[in-house]
């Protein structure tokens, strides 16, 4: 396969950045998308040019590091798939492919296709945890969890924090990520002590980080490589309403 790539190049956070066109020939349809970029980078290095910076780590779809806007699709055209698990057989010979970084104020570009997703860490730090006794893992059946709750919590726990939901959202909102964490912890008995402070804290941190507001447009769940359902946002909203009307665990009230 011979492909034309238009890739966002930006030398650093201060650089304005631009789309640059590259020609990549002899691409195997069995290559992953990132392997195709590796091939391009090897050629760039041999030619004495600066290779394209992009995030990646496990390359098996579970770490959440990779994240590319491919032809306007977060993680590319295949649903439920991270960019590293996307294969070149999804494209045709002669295609032109646009590759851009996630675009959000809360995710500033560090270089080329690499963005800083530290805003997600701030949201987690504001409540995405439980009070658990440290030490050895407890016996699994010592705290019973209803099967339906366990399933829904597990579904949300599949979130890898890649940021595709933010990248695809027309409002630049990180609500699906926040809601996945709130749902996962709020459905389990271990998550109950901080349930209300968690949702308030995480939503406040989300807004402070400069993400947009959710309008239930539903783009996030379409591109989510882990298929986090939109219903998690309903769970977040319900917890938020309960928490803001009670504030039971706010000190001094």
């Amino acid at each position, binding site marked *: 396969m011979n492909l034309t790539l238009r890739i966002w190049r930006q030398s650093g956070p201060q650089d304005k950045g631009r789309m640059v066109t590259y020609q990549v020939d002899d691409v195997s349809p069995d290559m992953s998308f990132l392997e195709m970029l590796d091939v391009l980078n090897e050629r760039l290095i041999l030619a004495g040019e600066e290779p394209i910076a992009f995030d990646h780590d496990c390359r098996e779809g579970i770490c959440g590091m990779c994240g590319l806007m491919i032809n306007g699709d977060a993680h590319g055209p295949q649903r439920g798939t991270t960019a590293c698990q996307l294969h070149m057989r999804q494209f045709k010979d002669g295609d032109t492919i646009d590759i851009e970084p996630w675009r*959000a104020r809360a995710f500033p570009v560090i270089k080329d296709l690499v963005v800083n997703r530290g805003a997600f860490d701030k949201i987690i730090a504001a409540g995405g945890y439980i009070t658990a006794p440290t030490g050895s893992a407890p016996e699994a059946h010592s705290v019973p969890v209803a099967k339906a709750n366990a399933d829904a919590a597990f579904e949300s726990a599949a979130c890898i924090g890649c940021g595709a939901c933010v990248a695809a959202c027309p409002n630049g909102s990180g609500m699906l990520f926040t809601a996945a964490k709130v749902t996962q912890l709020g459905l389990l008995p271990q998550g109950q002590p901080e349930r209300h402070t968690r949702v308030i804290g995480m939503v406040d941190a989300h807004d402070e980080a400069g993400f947009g507001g959710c309008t239930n447009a539903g783009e996030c769940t379409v591109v989510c490589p882990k298929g986090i359902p939109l219903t998690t946002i309903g769970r977040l909203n319900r917890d938020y309403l309960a928490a803001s009307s009670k504030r039971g665990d706010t000190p001094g009230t």
Partner: protein
Amino acid sequence: MAVTGIFLVLFLIAHMLGNLKVFAGDASFNHYAHWLREIGAPILPNVWFLWIMRVGLLVAVLGHIWAATVLALRARAARPVRYAHRKKVRGSYAARTMRWGGVIILLFVIYHILDLTTGTLNPVGDPSRPYANVVADFAPARWYVTLFYTLAIVALGFHLRHGVFSALRSLGQQTPRGEQRARAVALVFAVALCAGYLLVPFAVLTGLVS
């Protein structure tokens, strides 16, 4: 958005049911329209109820627009650099057109008040004969009024299709089966409301009401 929207939706239901009185005939429709001015009497003086409703609606509309503006400004600020290659929103056509659809509906509401409340833009414009105003408004010769009315109502239908679902979600709808139900309710409600509002102009256009 959800709370002000629900108030406006309740008004839309009442307004649509009132409109359908046009099929009960000239006298019945006029009597209904005049009764609206007297609701609450004798506890409330004449037209007081109407003015309370108007102020309530104005507050709801302004609150709705304010919330929408805040969301739109936040969305704009949240993505300072745009994508070079951007697909259209795939969630739904209704979700994609919420903001511009809302602007169209606002323009229509302004026209609608000037037309059938104050009578300024109405060919008859006689406040004592609302039935005659409606019939003159949608006369076949003024097809462009009917066309604009239809477009505005269809825009309202799309607005409600996403709006009702989104309001239910904002107020805590949280199960997958409930999501299907909420989407179905939103669709059925939007279609029913559109049909109810469009019956009147098309009945006038086809001569069923004259």
